[in-house]
């Protein structure tokens, strides 16, 4: 386990990360092939995207300070009003840049 693999070591590391990551990417799908898609399972899967987004952005907003919170709120408002992804991203990112330029 302690032998120096030399320059080939980088390739082994890349291969290991790639294989593990693909196993994860395909694994959930593969597993669900053996789980019947009952109504309850579908309900849980339907609820998953919103839950993942919240689990990513809420801690980020809490940790990221004023700029992150402003960016997220502006983007939500822009998306609600304009229903356009690109517009929402431009508004949110612009708001964050403005907040940072002003003080924070």
């Amino acid at each position: 386990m302690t032998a120096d693999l030399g320059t080939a070591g980088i390739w082994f590391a890349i291969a290991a990360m790639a294989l593990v990551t693909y196993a994860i990417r395909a694994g959930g799908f593969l597993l669900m092939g053996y789980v019947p898609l009952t109504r309850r399972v579908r309900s849980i899967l339907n609820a998953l995207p919103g839950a993942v987004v919240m689990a990513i952005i809420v801690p980020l907003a809490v940790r990221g300070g004023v700029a992150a919170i402003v960016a997220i709120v502006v983007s939500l408002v822009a998306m609600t009003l304009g229903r356009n992804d690109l517009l929402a991203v431009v508004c949110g990112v612009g708001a964050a840049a403005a907040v940072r330029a002003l003080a924070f």
Partner: protein
Amino acid sequence: MTDPESLPERPRPLMAGFSHGIRLGLPVTPGVIVFGLVVGAASARHGLSFIQNLAMNIFVFSGIAQLVALEAWPQVITWGAVATLGVLAAVIGARLFLMSVSMRPWFGTLPAWQSYLGLTLLTDASWLIAMRYYGEGGRDVAVYFGAALMMMAGWVAGACAGYLLGGLVVEPARYGLDLVLPVFFAAMLVPLWAGRRRAYGWIVAGIVAVVVERLVPGWWFIVAGSVAGALAGGYLDEAQPEAEE
């Protein structure tokens, strides 16, 4: 952006779906490129060759995992180090497992070569685009491939540029570019909104994620918050018969 109401089941030309997917991926692409720049620069700093950087970005294609692995990149690579980097990729990529789970209802209807090829390109952004598209009735897998390959193109372009430019990259935070991905995610909450009942799951997800982030080091807060929120949302949804779309 365009015709989410169009008839989903009618076959349409491959390229039409593909370019629709590219359009869906467009808003988040700047964020993907900037993230790629950072990872490419880190690869150069840690002694990867240009080809190794390219290979890692194409085949691992998992931004946060790569960044953390590169931060922990050992001077001398042993089998132990290879194993450690593999475990790191697994732990940080764990949320991809949940995303993969939720691709089943759609990708389960496809030929295996399409679903397993498609899953090689699964990232946070492409998954979210897919979920929204599917949620709005879309079933054209060319749309998924268009969006996912757009992510890959932006990622690889960013990573190669970052590798070559190295330290010359301007600080992305100044222009708010570090927030493109989270801001895009936040915007996606609007089309994902499915009534107040579903929102209880969202609240659970947010609270659990914040608490776990405080208590447990690493990236487990995403997995913990997501699972808690999906279970809460799913069970509450079940309690309401007409909530099924």
